[in-house]
């Protein structure tokens, strides 16, 4: 699934590890989502939207 997670993360100057901590997942999971190798579940997508303070469609 295409996403802008890397851009959103770079805008906030967060590392993958920092984002992983905020989402309570592993850095590997963040990396897999960013590289589009893994599609997150709906709860994780909502949590990501909450962390970035944006709509789920904007991720």
């Amino acid at each position: 699934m295409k996403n802008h997670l890397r851009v959103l993360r770079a805008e906030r100057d967060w590392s993958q590890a920092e984002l992983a901590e905020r989402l309570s997942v592993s850095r590997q999971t963040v990396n897999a989502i960013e590289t589009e190798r893994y599609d997150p579940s709906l709860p994780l997508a909502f949590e990501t939207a909450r962390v970035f303070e944006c709509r789920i469609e904007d991720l």
Partner: protein
Amino acid sequence: MLNDTHPKSTQKLGIWLLLALTANGALLRLALSLAMRDGTRNPIPAAAIAWALAALALTASLLWLLRSVWRRRDSWALYLGAALLCIVFYKVGRNRPELAPIELPLAILLLAPAALLVWAFVRQVRRADELERKILFQALAFAFVIEFSVAIVYALLEGMDVPRPPSILWASLLVMSWAAGLGIFARRYE
């Protein structure tokens, strides 16, 4: 690969400690074995007792160090190491009649790391995030199929007077195929 926030150096230390502990366990059993063998003819030599005591002290200190690593959060390598520990403790000194009087307490002693293993595994699954659970599940399925296939092949060969493999083979095969599965499926998401 699991939801660990501790630095990699802690993981490495944990793995090294487990390897040291395993080697130490093997040495301890060998020392006991030597002591028992000589003890059948003469009184137990002082050197063997000294070696056994030294190995025991080293085991205790390594366990203490491992406890601190464990407290800082474990990793999957820790319980794989614990499995290795069980196997080596079991393997060294196997089929040694001179160990017979202490065989039972040593066998019971193995229940402690086995219980630790169950606890660590359940805790790890509970702490894993959704991707990690997916990888764990795929690795377990992979290990199950391998174990099942080998068991079926052996069951078919059993009637053809094929020598009986040691029982430890099944546990080792499960651990090894599971570890291989973790490696294979984790790579997909790197």
